[in-house]
């Protein structure tokens, strides 16, 4: 459950790319320990940029960002010890798994983090074996990462982040390109990791999974503002909002049915009917 | 290794283009001949890869960086002529995108990185791994070594091109007009940086990529083996004629207008070629004897035929040094190949 400790706190954050283009405008938000939060928005709304800001890969000059109680800035991250300590606590699963996996085989990939920390060999082996067992990646131990399918790569990417046991997990579109069963696996894993105490922040525009992987949703508009914030059910019921920010188009309808939310287009007969009427 | 505009005198630049333009034509012809459609996208990838490779900085203990070029391994995978085109394209994009590498110096930049490196690499590779299987370790080892040697030879050529500038082109007061460092500084500087930093990177990249292809797609390597040696040798014989003809003709071409229009040549012509005599006459110490023979007045404003002759002497100097280097390498490698083949023959007949 959500604790009182604030994991991320942003005040009046604006972010521009080096070329001058605006990516985020006037962002104020706070995320507590143990929450699972969804960042919702269309492509280009700034949610990926926000994740990178939270991970100390990008830095803003306007506004303040605190992570785990400390200021997260170019200055603080320039401090080597701090930077390492930070990255041990916050893990990032990138949208592009190809970019994330660069070692010669899956085992080495998952071992990468522990090896950097200088753990003894048997400790490293133990942790990697454990992680591989947890995610069911035994068949791929010796496989080079670029010879895995999209879903397998995604799981390996998650595995290599988990081998360091971060307290916070940032994920950028984790379900994009996954087949239904792998998606189901991923969702279940996110839920269990959250139950184990991890704070999880997922950026996505896939509304089907939001309720399952998040308790709270933050909605970003196409003009880079944070326009809404609240429990998932409330946000997903607000169809006008969803249409306005291009999370849902006018043809598709969201109907809440009890504890479920159905997303569908009108069936053919109904459309024909409305055509005849006009 | 990129030379920006302003480091090389116009005369040198012309020589660079004089060498490369026929080389590019041959390359285009060769690639079209051996073309199967699959090669074009691969060449594009090769060019883009070479470009990106030149942006990767590898840390060297002590904190500085160096970069690889990649044209050696492209020569092994795609053939030297295709590699020439790929690298020339990568260099063109860098010249245009970054101003990294000049436009006037583009000829010599391509000579160094798109001609010397691929050909030195392929000669060494063929000489030592030419008879091996497509997947033999010898291939990636010699691709790597060949690339290392190639990039260093290119660095030496580069140093020579730069180092000749202050020796030939400076004002009467001794101010160098182009690159200010003479050959005894520029060549060691370039060579050291490449022997120790960029060279090993080139070596590793070539080894890695060749091995990658051997593992995933050895047919590409096999294709190159099939189309080898004989055509390359024949092309080179022709190349010699072309290059030598150019070396002779280019200065003659410049002499012709002066000769044709005589002393009353339009001021444009004087203006266009006047800068070279000025530089040459500064070398008066060396060329004094010649000048006296031809009775040349010590004036930078004269566009008389003898001035043009001095200018053409400059061309010759630059060109001959460059050709000498290529000739030296060709000779050495040809002897190496011939010696190995003789040994193989001897072994066969003994067996």
């Amino acid at each position, binding site marked *: 459950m959500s604790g009182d400790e604030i994991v991320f706190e942003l005040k009046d954050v604006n972010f521009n790319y080096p070329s001058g283009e605006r990516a985020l405008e006037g962002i104020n938000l706070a995320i507590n320990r143990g929450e699972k939060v969804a960042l919702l928005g269309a492509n280009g709304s700034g949610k990926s940029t926000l994740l990178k800001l939270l991970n100390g890969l990008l830095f803003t000059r306007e506004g303040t960002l605190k992570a785990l109680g400390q200021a997260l800035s170019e200055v603080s991250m320039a401090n080597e010890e701090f930077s390492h300590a930070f990255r041990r606590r916050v893990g990032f699963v990138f949208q592009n798994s190809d970019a994330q996996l660069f070692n010669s085989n899956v085992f080495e990939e998952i071992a990468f983090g522990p090896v950097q920390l200088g753990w003894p060999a048997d400790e490293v082996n133990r942790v990697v074996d454990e992680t591989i067992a947890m995610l069911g990646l035994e068949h791929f131990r010796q496989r080079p990462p670029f010879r895995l399918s999209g879903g397998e790569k995604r799981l390996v990417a998650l595995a290599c982040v988990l081998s360091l046991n971060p307290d916070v997990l940032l994920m950028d579109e984790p379900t994009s390109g996954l087949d239904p069963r792998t998606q*189901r696996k991923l969702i279940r894993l996110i839920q269990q990791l959250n139950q184990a105490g991890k704070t999880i922040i997922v950026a996505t525009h896939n509304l089907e999974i939001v309720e399952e992987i998040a308790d709270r949703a933050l909605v970003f508009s196409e003009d880079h503002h944070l326009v809404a914030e609240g429990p998932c059910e409330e946000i997903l019921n607000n169809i006008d909002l969803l249409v306005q920010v291009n999370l849902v188009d006018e043809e598709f309808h969201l109907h809440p049915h009890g504890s479920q939310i159905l997303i569908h287009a009108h069936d053919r007969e109904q459309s024909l009917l409305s055509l005849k009427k006009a | 290794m990129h030379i920006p505009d302003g480091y090389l005198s116009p005369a040198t630049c012309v020589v660079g283009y004089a060498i490369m333009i026929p080389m590019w034509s041959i390359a285009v012809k060769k690639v079209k001949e051996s073309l199967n459609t699959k090669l074009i996208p691969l060449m*594009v*990838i090769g060019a883009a890869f070479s470009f990106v490779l030149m942006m990767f900085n590898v840390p060297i203990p002590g904190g500085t960086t160096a970069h690889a070029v990649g044209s050696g391994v492209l020569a092994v995978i795609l053939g030297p002529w295709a590699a020439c085109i790929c690298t020339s394209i990568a260099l063109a994009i860098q010249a245009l995108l970054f101003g990294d590498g000049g436009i006037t110096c583009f000829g010599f930049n391509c000579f160094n990185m798109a001609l010397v490196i691929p050909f030195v690499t392929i000669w060494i590779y063929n000489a030592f791994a030419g008879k091996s299987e497509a997947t033999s370790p010898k291939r990636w080892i010699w691709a790597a070594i060949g690339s290392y040697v190639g990039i260093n030879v290119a660095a030496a050529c580069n140093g020579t091109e730069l180092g000749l500038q202050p020796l030939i082109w400076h004002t009467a007061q001794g101010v160098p007009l182009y690159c200010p460092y003479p050959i005894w500084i520029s060549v060691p500087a370039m060579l050291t940086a490449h022997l120790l930093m960029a060279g090993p990177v080139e070596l590793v990249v070539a080894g890695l990529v060749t091995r990658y292809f051997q593992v995933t797609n050895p047919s590409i390597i096999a294709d190159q083996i099939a189309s080898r040696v004989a055509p390359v040798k024949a092309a080179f014989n022709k190349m010699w004629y072309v290059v030598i003809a150019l070396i002779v003709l280019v200065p003659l071409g410049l002499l012709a207008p002066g000769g044709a229009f005589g002393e009353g040549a339009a001021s444009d012509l004087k203006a266009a070629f006047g800068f070279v005599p000025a530089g040459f006459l500064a070398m008066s110490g060396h060329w004094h004897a010649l000048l006296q023979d031809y009775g040349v007045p010590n004036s930078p404003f004269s566009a008389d035929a003898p001035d043009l002759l001095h200018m053409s002497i400059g061309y010759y100097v630059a060109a001959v040094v460059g050709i000498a280097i290529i000739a030296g390498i060709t000779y050495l490698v040809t002897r190496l190949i011939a010696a190995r083949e003789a040994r193989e023959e001897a072994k066969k007949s003994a067996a």
Partner: protein
Amino acid sequence: MVDFQIPDRLLQSQGPLPPPTGNKKAGRSFAEKSIGAFSGFIMDDFYAERTAVKNGLMQGLHPGIKVVTSLLLIVVAVSMHSWVSLLLINLYVLLLAYLSKVPLGIFLKRVWVFIPIFTLIIVLPTLFNVFRPGDPLVVLLQYGGHHQLTITRQGVEGAVIFVLRVAACVSIVVLLTLTTRWAYLLRGFSMVRIPTLFINILEMTYRYIYVLLKSASDMFESRLSRTVGRTSTREQQKFVGNSMGALWAIAFALSDEVHAAMLSRGYDGTPRTLTNPRIRDLDWVWTVLIILISIILIGGDRLVR
């Protein structure tokens, strides 16, 4: 329902994040430096072609004419010997940039930040009399009786000419590429009789570079986010080696797909010629203007020498 066996160690927390202490600065690793290089003005400015679509002077010229006249100007710049004419060329190109609605700050930064400053550093030793003797301009110190360490007049003159010349050439190229869309630049090249094969490959390469740069940048970024401890130089080199291999694998796989796409659209290996846009009066006026300016500059250069 799928269920995972979450191991005990994942139930533990890392503990609070200690504040930054001490002065141990993370030396910007090569990876971070590379990210800076990739994600900088190269990816955004150039590929966005933002200046090239504005309605300025250079943008309105025929691409072939632009290429040829730019080439002419570069040759002229390389032929100049007096710092006066070189300064004039630099100012002239700056004026053209202004008339072409190029933001001058960005223009100057693009031109000067890399090559000319680099050249200045290279040429620095030549300022001193220990490198090449000459008339002293500034005496720095006296030693051993008669000996002096001075900055020579010739040294300064040579350095100034050199740097100005390099800057002039770079600024001409930067102006050309900032004000011309890539596709049209290539048409300009075809006017200068560059073989179609080259142009086709140039065209595709430009796009591929973007893809590869993005992939490489992503790789370095994700590597950075996994930097939890100091890695040896050897480790970093291994990473670069692996990245290069992975990058090549990506490029190669892409090549297969592109080849298939090309074939399915009728490509049979013959490069087709590009169509030529029309040359207008403005282009002729421009050409004459540039030729005139070139003659004036060369002539003036000769006089000033």
